[in-house]
């Protein structure tokens, strides 16, 4: 039972190690592609098991919970793992064209796979300190990937990214220490029960520490500065995987902790989350409106969209959590894809600065088509995935008559349209200022395939979610139900005994 949980961790690590030893040859990149493909298979296996049989938990080292480390997948974890694997495959293929040999020699593929492993570890672990460890694995790999490109922008972005994330990491660590100090345990399922005996006031204070720590990771207001400062600087493959996954790990952690452990004083903690989420949405989208660069706009939109997801959590109603889960799934796919598209744009049009590019609609209609799918999905246009995500959140807010919140969510949607059309008008519709004809045929066949297959694949997922949302909504409902009533989760973990009872 437990190996199905281990494979999604072990495969990327093994891939990273192999890719490292073959980093000087072309084999490295294919190892990465093969490894992520294998990972996808393993993730599907896990997903299927969780989908059919419910929460899967395993005790590492066969030590029983809560003493040993638990890996556990409920529906939320399982789907996050699956989406991560999908993004990993897409980006690994994209990297075939996007990553230069210099970066490969410096270990790009190894770093990338470790990053994926860290993300997956965070999704799969059922232990708070272990979560910290995976956060760090993810963080350090992201540091490396971020600065791999070198150059002034990447280094400057790196400085801010590193500095601000380190603060959050240390706060997280401190929070773990404090939480252990009042509960005596680290196992999340065990914590869920142990907090009942803890002093509620003290628990609230510690919850706030976690909220801020994860808030930095998730890029909530006013903690998001690192993201727009850095996400536009690295390789496109890197910013795509960052955009898709990293903040979502923060959101995931918020969801996990604030449904499983810190649900003792929703009137305070979740109310704060609610207003933070609203501010995040609004400030993020206004930030995007102020930008004139493809990737910078996208970066601020990550912030804004995180607001929606956290809003779903903050509402803490069944529908709100359904919306949060659905939003996560949708957003990872769409946002990663938009960054991938930005990369192709930059390659053929010469820049991501909107004033310096154009002509993509006329000369690269396929790219334009794929962009429209992703961008208008992000903007929440039906019948694309983003519409249903927004719909669920707005409905959840309206359901409990949170008028201002719903209004903000809708207004932010409008501003998202504004930004996406700004990109569309400047990069796609308007002619290129230098008269360049940005055609996809500038690429070799192999490059074109490596660039376009992942983009098209992710776009197809976006459309599929949009046209057949029922399966995803139903799934999100099941996942949300597990979150709101974690009895299954707790039973699976605390009953998943090792050899010693």
């Amino acid at each position, binding site marked *: 039972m437990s190996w199905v949980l281990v494979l999604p961790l072990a495969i990327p690590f093994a891939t990273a190690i192999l890719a490292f030893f073959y980093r000087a040859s072309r084999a490295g990149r294919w190892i990465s592609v093969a490894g992520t493909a294998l990972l996808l298979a393993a993730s599907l296996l896990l997903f299927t098991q969780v989908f059919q049989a419910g929460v899967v938990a395993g005790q590492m080292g066969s030590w029983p919970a809560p003493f040993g480390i638990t890996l556990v997948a409920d529906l939320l974890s399982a789907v996050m793992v699956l989406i991560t694997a999908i993004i990993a495959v897409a980006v690994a293929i994209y990297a075939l064209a996007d990553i230069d040999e210099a970066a490969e020699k410096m270990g790009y593929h190894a770093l990338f796979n470790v990053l994926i492993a860290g993300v997956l570890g965070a999704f799969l672990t059922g232990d708070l*300190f272990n979560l910290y*460890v995976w956060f*760090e694995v993810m*963080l*350090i790999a992201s*540091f*490396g990937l971020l*600065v791999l490109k*070198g*150059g*002034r*922008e*990447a*280094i*400057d*972005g*790196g*400085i*801010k990214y*590193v*500095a601000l994330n*380190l*603060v959050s*990491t*240390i706060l997280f*660590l*401190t929070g*773990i*220490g*404090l939480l*252990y*100090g009042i509960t005596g345990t680290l196992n999340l399922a065990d914590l869920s029960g142990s907090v009942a005996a803890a002093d509620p006031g003290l628990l609230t204070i510690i919850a706030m520490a976690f909220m801020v720590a994860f808030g930095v990771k998730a890029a909530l207001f006013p903690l998001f500065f690192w993201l*727009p*400062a*850095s996400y*536009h*600087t690295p390789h496109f493959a890197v910013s795509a995987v960052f955009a898709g996954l990293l903040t979502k790990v923060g959101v995931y952690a918020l969801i996990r902790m604030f449904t499983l452990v810190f649900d003792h004083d929703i009137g305070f903690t979740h109310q704060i989350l609610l207003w933070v989420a609203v501010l995040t949405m609004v400030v993020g989208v206004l930030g995007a409106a102020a930008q004139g*660069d493809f990737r910078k706009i996208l970066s601020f939109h990550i912030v804004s969209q995180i607001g929606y997801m956290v809003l779903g959590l903050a509402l803490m109603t069944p529908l709100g959590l359904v919306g949060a889960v659905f939003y996560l799934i949708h957003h990872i796919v769409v946002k990663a894809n938009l960054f991938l598209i930005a990369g192709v744009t930059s390659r053929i049009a010469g*820049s991501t*600065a909107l004033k310096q590019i154009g002509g993509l609609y006329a000369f690269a209609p396929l790219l334009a088509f794929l962009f429209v799918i992703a961008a208008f999905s992000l903007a929440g246009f039906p019948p694309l995935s983003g519409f249903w995500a927004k719909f669920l959140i707005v409905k959840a807010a309206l359901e409990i008559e949170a008028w201002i919140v719903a209004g903000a969510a809708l207004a932010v949607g409008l501003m998202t349209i504004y930004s996406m059309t700004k990109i569309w008008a400047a990069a796609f519709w308007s002619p290129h200022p230098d008269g360049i004809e940005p055609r996809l045929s500038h690429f070799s066949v192999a490059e074109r395939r490596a660039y376009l297959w992942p983009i098209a694949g992710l776009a197809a997922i976006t459309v599929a979610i949009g046209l057949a949302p029922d399966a995803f909504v139903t799934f999100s409902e099941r996942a949300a139900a597990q979150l709101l009533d974690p009895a299954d989760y707790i039973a699976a973990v605390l009953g998943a005994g090792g050899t010693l009872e």
Partner: protein
Amino acid sequence: MEALLAITIGALVAAAVYLMLSGHMLRFIFGLVLISNAANLTIFTAGRMTEGAPPLIAPGANAPPEGVANALPQALVLTAIVIGFGLFAFAVTLVWRAWGTLGTIEADEMRAAEPFPEEPAPK
């Protein structure tokens, strides 16, 4: 001792934060090291403190004597120290590279990724 150490940790944190806010990246690094130490001490303190009884099992015994120090926080701190070192090593390298590439050690003068609005974005 927990209480005294709590105060000491507070002071370490204050010093660290003050350093980190200085804008000089070297001072930031110093602050980082300090605050990491503070965090490690926090875990250690939160796991409660026992004088001089390491969690070791004497040869021939099956378990440590009653009242040995809490082993779990120690393991956590040890892990945190090593992770912290990894992060520190990267950060210090980055500062160095930033000095080499950006020509400044003052954080607020590092504006390559977020140039002032009036400056044209670097190509």
